[in-house]
């Protein structure tokens, strides 16, 4: 790790360029800087800490391997996130050997109504999110959590903008239905676009 000293202040473009030319210290610094954001993306798509860790590792190892083929070093972030999303798809397709589900149990110390609503909301969201396809989850997380505009996330995922918009629309509608199911009617496409 001593070799990392001196690289900390280096700008990302230089790090990417050096790493692409085989500089291991530069890649180690890049991996250190980006691993949390990659994991944050993976854990939100996969909803599983272990699988997210696996996807993050695979994406970063793939990044090292393929870095020399990156044509636009200034788009390293988007490129890396694309690798993470694809690693998540691979993880999600794998056989699900075990599945921990946390359910809300009644307790004697009932929480305040607002708190209870929040807990129920979260449980409902977890369930609804689990029903989405990995492709829909990726669009939701990249757009609403990582802040990518639709055009850019479509580029990251390699899909047309219209497909990205459609996936986002149906995913968000499903999540809102889960939130409002017992209290309000489900949102329809007409209401959403109004």
């Amino acid at each position: 790790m001593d070799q990392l000293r001196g690289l900390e202040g280096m700008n990302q473009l230089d790090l990417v360029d050096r790493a692409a030319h085989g500089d291991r210290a530069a890649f180690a610094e890049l991996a250190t800087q980006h691993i949390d954001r990659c994991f944050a993306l993976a854990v939100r798509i996969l909803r599983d800490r272990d699988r997210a860790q696996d996807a993050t590792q695979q994406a970063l190892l793939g990044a090292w391997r393929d870095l020399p083929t990156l044509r636009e070093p200034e788009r390293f972030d988007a490129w890396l996130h694309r690798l993470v999303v694809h690693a998540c798809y691979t993880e999600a397709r794998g056989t699900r050997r075990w599945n921990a589900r946390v359910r809300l149990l009644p307790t004697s110390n009932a929480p305040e109504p607002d708190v209870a609503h929040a807990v129920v909301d979260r449980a409902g969201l977890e369930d609804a999110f689990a029903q989405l396809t990995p492709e829909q989850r990726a669009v939701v997380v990249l757009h609403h959590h990582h802040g990518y505009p639709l055009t850019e996330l479509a580029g990251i995922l390699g899909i047309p903008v219209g497909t990205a918009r459609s996936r986002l629309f149906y995913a968000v509608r499903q999540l809102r239905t889960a939130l409002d199911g017992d209290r309000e009617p489900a949102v329809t496409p007409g209401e959403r676009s109004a």
Partner: protein
Amino acid sequence: MTRSIDPLFDPRLADWLEEDESTAPEQALEIVLTSFPSIKQRRAVRVPSWTTSMSSTLRLGLAAAVVVAATLGGIYFLGPRPSSSVAGPETPTPSVADSPMVSKSPQAEPSASAEMTAAPPAGTPPPVGEITFGLPYHDCGHLPSIEAQVAVELGPIFRLKVFDGERLVADAYVTRVGVADGGLGYDVPVDVDRDGLITVQFGVVRGVFPQRAEDTRLDVELSQLGQLVARGVYECVPLSP
């Protein structure tokens, strides 16, 4: 982390997304930093500068020549071959199936040697190889050494999972450089020979399976870059007195 950029996005959804973990486990960075140096980088494909100064006619002609050459090459390499070249000598798969205490996977796909005789079409998942086991300890309390015959080129890092029923009892990232990171606080000696035969000496690791009863069955999976490359089932059945 960036909050939702869509003002119509329900704040409850945004809060829920925000609440999730945003820090990777320390082990993840350790694994990446210790593994990547042994991975060979791909070569960049660079366009020679002289191609940009060519006339469009010349470029079109060159492109046509490349297409014709690729087509002829494809026909030559992918076309029908004499049958004698398909049936290569079979590679013996290591097995200790003679032992009454060891079983091979009933789910195992065609053996590695059979898969190696014909190239799979591009885009298909790699063939699944076979995991066999060395002689177990007499008390079934320890998993014996694992031998995996994989039918794909083995990369520098792969992952070994052992399930006791639905319970994951071992999850090890294994590098072919000598010693595996056991993932559960122990190191696992591992050996990969030139033919890709992996031997993992799980049996010498005491205390990994302290609670196992007899007649238990373990499912063992070996994966690489998210793809299953070998699997096997180990059953420890005590010998009759």
